[in-house]
């Protein structure tokens, strides 16, 4: 047998590589959506069964569009390859805003559905980023979050829902005197600190959207000398957050997780809980009949300052790169039919995003309705910081006793550094 020359080996390898690449490209084509298929991306676990059923009904009701549910593919990779889903319905946050900001999402302002969205809810989308001349993202469901409280404990102690900081402290003191833990903390899970303790205290006092407008403008100049900064603007609310934790949270909060917290709160181990409506379903698994209510955390001396934290739990968008925008728009219109939206929001304890949405009725979230209706809400301060900065971990270290000023200074420095390189 002749010895193969190095060149022949090289050629064989090259051919094999070429073949592999060709093969993978073909596979890519096969999985891409064809003309009448709409790839529908939805990843919120609790919502999947509801939409799976909805899609079956929709596919059976007409023959133009065939909707396929996609619950798991990687969005970033999809956009990167130019093969994103045709329609997305998911949580809207900083990460999604990036796609919009760079023009990857198509304009939906000519659709009648965009006219029905509440303007103050549409504003929430713009707080993250905008693309000139486009309405690319339509909010579908909003989650309002504030302090969850145990009504039985409040009634037994003869307590009213506090509306100012002093009233809050008085409530906590009275609970402590009665041997009841005022707040249940679950600091083992950093996100619970950021979502509840940090966002509620900051949002109760600071104009979050205005603050980040200024921070984005300042960029690299954020620091000890700048007119606004985390260290300067957040100093009082974050100090108060630490005060609430030190004085009124369960002593073992540092080692408790979100799951521990839901169980403990369901069993009446504390009077108040800094969590969102998603925790209500978990609590109900243990104590289905427990009477719970919600109220915005009072951080000032004026009851008019009260606001609730909101996030856009689901929002719809259609990528520019979709090859079936027409089909996607048809299904989007179906999703935005009012009774479809109302049924979803009622089931998931969400607030409607349209002018004609049905009012919420669940007593557990009714406490936030007036604030929501008056647009007295803010998006979480921790959610406006790019994920590459470990905000949740920073807030956790404050909860565990680190000096707030030092941690906020680190946050300022990270912000300025990120602005420098992006």
């Amino acid at each position, binding site marked *: 047998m002749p010895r193969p020359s190095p060149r022949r080996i090289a050629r064989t*390898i090259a051919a094999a590589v070429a073949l592999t690449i060709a093969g993978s490209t073909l596979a890519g084509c096969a999985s891409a959506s064809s003309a009448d298929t709409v790839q529908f991306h939805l990843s919120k676990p609790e919502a999947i069964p509801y939409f799976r059923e909805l899609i079956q009904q929709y596919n059976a009701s007409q023959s133009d569009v065939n909707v396929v549910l996609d619950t798991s593919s990687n969005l970033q990779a999809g956009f990167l390859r130019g093969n994103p889903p045709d329609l997305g319905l998911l949580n809207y946050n900083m990460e999604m805003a990036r796609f919009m900001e*760079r023009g990857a999402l198509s304009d939906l302002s000519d659709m009648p559905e965009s006219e029905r969205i509440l303007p103050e809810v549409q504003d929430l989308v713009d707080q993250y980023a905008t693309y000139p001349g486009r309405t690319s993202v339509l909010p579908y469901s909003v989650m309002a979050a504030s302090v969850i409280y145990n009504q039985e404990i409040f009634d037994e102690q003869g307590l009213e829902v506090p509306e100012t900081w002093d009233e809050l402290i008085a409530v906590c003191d009275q609970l402590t005197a009665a041997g009841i833990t005022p707040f249940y903390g679950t600091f083992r899970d950093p996100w619970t600190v950021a979502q509840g303790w940090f966002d509620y205290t900051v949002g109760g006092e600071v104009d979050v959207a205005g603050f980040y407008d200024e921070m984005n403008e300042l960029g690299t100049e954020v620091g000890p000398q700048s007119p606004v900064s985390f260290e300067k603007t957040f100093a009082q609310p974050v100090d108060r957050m630490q005060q609430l934790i030190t004085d009124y949270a369960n002593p073992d909060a540092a080692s408790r997780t979100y799951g521990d917290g839901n169980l403990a709160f369901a069993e009446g181990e504390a009077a108040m809980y800094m969590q969102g409506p998603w925790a209500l379903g978990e609590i109900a698994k243990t104590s289905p009949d427990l009477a719970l209510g919600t109220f915005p955390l009072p951080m000032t001396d004026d009851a008019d300052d009260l606001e609730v934290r909101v996030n856009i739990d689901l929002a719809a968008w259609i990528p520019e790169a979709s090859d079936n925008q027409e089909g996607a728009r048809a299904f989007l219109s179906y999703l935005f039919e009012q009774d479809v939206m109302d049924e979803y929001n009622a089931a998931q304890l969400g607030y409607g995003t349209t002018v004609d949405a049905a009012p919420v009725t669940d007593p557990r979230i009714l406490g936030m309705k007036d604030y929501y209706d008056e647009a007295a809400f803010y998006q979480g301060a921790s959610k406006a910081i790019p994920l590459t900065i470990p905000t949740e971990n920073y807030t956790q270290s404050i909860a565990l006793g680190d000096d707030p000023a030092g941690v906020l200074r680190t946050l300022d420095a990270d912000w300025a550094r990120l602005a420098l390189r992006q």
Partner: protein
Amino acid sequence: MTTVIAAPPPPTRDTVPPPSPSGKRRVEPIYYAFLLPSLVIFTLAITVPAIIGIFFSFTNSIGFGDWDFIGLVNYAALFSDPAILQSYLFTFSFAVTTVIVVNVLAFLLAVGLTARIRAKTALRTVFVIPMVVSGIIIAYVFSFLFSNSVPALGQALGIDWLSESILANPDLAWIGIVIVTAWQSIPGTLLIYIAGLLSIPGDVYEAADLDGASKRQQLWRITLPLVSGYVVINVILGLKNFLNAYDIIIGLTNGGPGTATRSIPMTIITGFTGGDYAYQMANAAMFFIIVVVISVIQLRISRGRNSV
């Protein structure tokens, strides 16, 4: 890989095929065919993405969309980023500590398990079990133990420092990670040491006995020098694994409390999830260079050992 192959005692003379008269050995093409699939996959899945990643580390890309070349800005920013520097400090201290803990304990266990003891096979099986459980599951189980069982024990016994979860203490959380990582890594290291100990011929010890060497002298003068090749492999493999620590940390502390236990791979991953792609590619490139340097140094040392 070469160290793994080089480590067992070299084959005896007569098993090596004699060189062909012409001085050149003919290579069967089938060997290339064997290599080809892994070569192609390695190139496509590792080498090409690595080169693309290094390319992007000189840009301000966030993973998609428009980008510009920004030269060495990302690299300069790395060196002034306390979070990155802290993750390097943590990762290297953690890796070195864990390598020492794992190797000392695994070696002692291996000596015990190769001695003439009862139920040797059963005991070996027991000690190897942790190896087959996935890291993230081990982490969640230990997380529960550290947060609930151990503090409960501490409270019952009235021991103060045990009454609180060490994972919630920024100064002690790393110890929890070392313990769990060691628990999972000892079996693999142990198996290599057992193989090494079994390869030492018994007559060496008989001769030592006749010369009046004590057990301790035998350990230091005979056993350790004869398994030194295995020590080198275990240290290299261990260091490589522990520098890449990820799943156990995610399950135990998620980088917390605060940022006390964020490892380098955890910060690199945020480049994808947090839209800081180019910057973390620069971090990955730097990490790669450091690991290469360490590996080369270790290889040098191990070559020196084997040729003795």
